């Protein structure tokens, strides 16, 4: 998902403290920043929320790639509003992470140095206008699968951020599908763009849920702590089952010859994505990793004088105010 392959941290506190903490979570209580928490819980959350926040910020780039080329004034406004929402979501999530004792600048530096990751999906390029539809429909669709249950996550600030995000996010997937409908029902070229977008985004969307984690110890710990709510496979299956009829409605073909309904399991059978490709993308070898990081680095470096200038002025004003009193 936006937070893929988050390793949970080992925790070494006394068993009775851990048991008490687990009991609070099992009782459905929210853990708040000033509450006692195992170090492993805190560190895992920083990693997960930070990765989620980074994904929102880097996720502005592939869609931002089309803001200046949106084909109508209304499409331009809608896309801009959507990419702006992503900046907002990144902001809420960074703030949630900050309650755990890490600053936003520290998280940003960890992203830029490669110590922290972001979702693999944003390392794929947006090559035609239908990609903007596909990103909304498939990528946001997959993200929502994960984010809706995370509203119930055990950490209060994370849960509250997710509630706000889900509320704002609900228009994103619909605007994507709306573009896909226009394209799929449009001229032959538009339909070809729509199919091309689906062909390129299908497997990367399935990768968003991460590799199968049925037997993962890390996942088990995170699920017990309610910072992960469903397994990767559950969510992936749900996503496929939801998306297949939507693709059919559009008259588009999902690029998987093995895709078929399985009556017995009450869901679709489908092909796994190429996991070796996934691991390469995570390692930094996706089609756009370098560009994405260059863009973030440039914004950070070239913005330094601006951030410092405003801070300097604020200090001057504060000093003048003190002097006047």
């Amino acid at each position, binding site marked *: 998902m936006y937070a893929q392959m988050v390793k949970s941290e080992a925790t070494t506190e006394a068993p009775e403290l851990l048991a008490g903490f687990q009991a609070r979570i099992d009782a459905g209580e929210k853990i708040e920043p000033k509450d006692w928490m195992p170090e492993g819980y805190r560190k895992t959350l920083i990693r997960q929320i930070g990765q989620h926040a980074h994904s929102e910020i880097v996720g502005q780039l592939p869609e931002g790639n089309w803001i200046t080329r949106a084909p109508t004034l209304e499409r331009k406004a809608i896309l801009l509003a959507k990419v702006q*929402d992503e900046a907002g979501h990144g902001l809420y999530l960074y*703030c949630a992470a900050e309650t755990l004792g890490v600053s*936003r600048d520290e998280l940003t530096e960890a992203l830029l140095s490669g110590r922290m990751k972001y979702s693999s999906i944003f390392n794929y390029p947006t090559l035609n206008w239908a990609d903007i539809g596909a990103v909304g429909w498939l990528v946001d669709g997959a993200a929502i699968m994960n984010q809706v249950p995370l509203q119930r996550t055990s950490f*209060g600030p994370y849960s509250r951020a997710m*509630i706000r995000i889900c*509320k704002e996010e609900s228009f994103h997937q619909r605007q994507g599908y*709306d573009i896909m409908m226009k394209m799929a029902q449009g001229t032959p070229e538009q339909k070809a763009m729509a199919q091309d977008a689906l062909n390129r985004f299908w497997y990367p969307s399935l990768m968003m849920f991460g590799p199968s984690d049925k037997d993962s110890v890390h996942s088990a710990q995170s699920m017990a702590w309610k910072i992960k709510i469903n397994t990767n496979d559950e969510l992936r299956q749900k996503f496929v089952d939801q998306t297949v009829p939507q693709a059919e409605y559009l008259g588009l073909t999902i690029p998987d010859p093995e895709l078929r309904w399985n009556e017995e399991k009450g869901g679709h059978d489908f092909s796994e994505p190429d996991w070796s490709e996934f691991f390469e993308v995570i390692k930094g070898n996706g089609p756009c990793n370098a560009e994405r990081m260059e863009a973030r680095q440039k914004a950070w470096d070239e913005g330094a004088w601006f951030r410092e200038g405003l801070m300097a002025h604020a200090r001057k004003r504060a000093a003048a105010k003190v002097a006047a009193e």
Partner: protein
Amino acid sequence: MSNEWPLWEIFIRGQHGLNHRHVGSLHAPDAEMAVKHARDVYTRRNEGVSIWVVPSASITASSPSDKGPLFEPSNSKVYRHPTFFDIPEDVGKM
């Protein structure tokens, strides 16, 4: 001295005269800019009419018992709302 902008807690009173409500946080160099940022970040859907900002460092917290915030959407930018887009029933929930 760190050049990271300090963190502020944002409280907004909606259009229905309810109390100011904590909606989240943000970074700003001083209080005035925090108010401007709050307007841009937390009232994109016209959720509020009055904004308070408080340096996060000035908050003294007892045992936490916050519930999640609620937000009143507005109609000024209709495309931000999912109902702006007509989705055929055949395609299922979205």
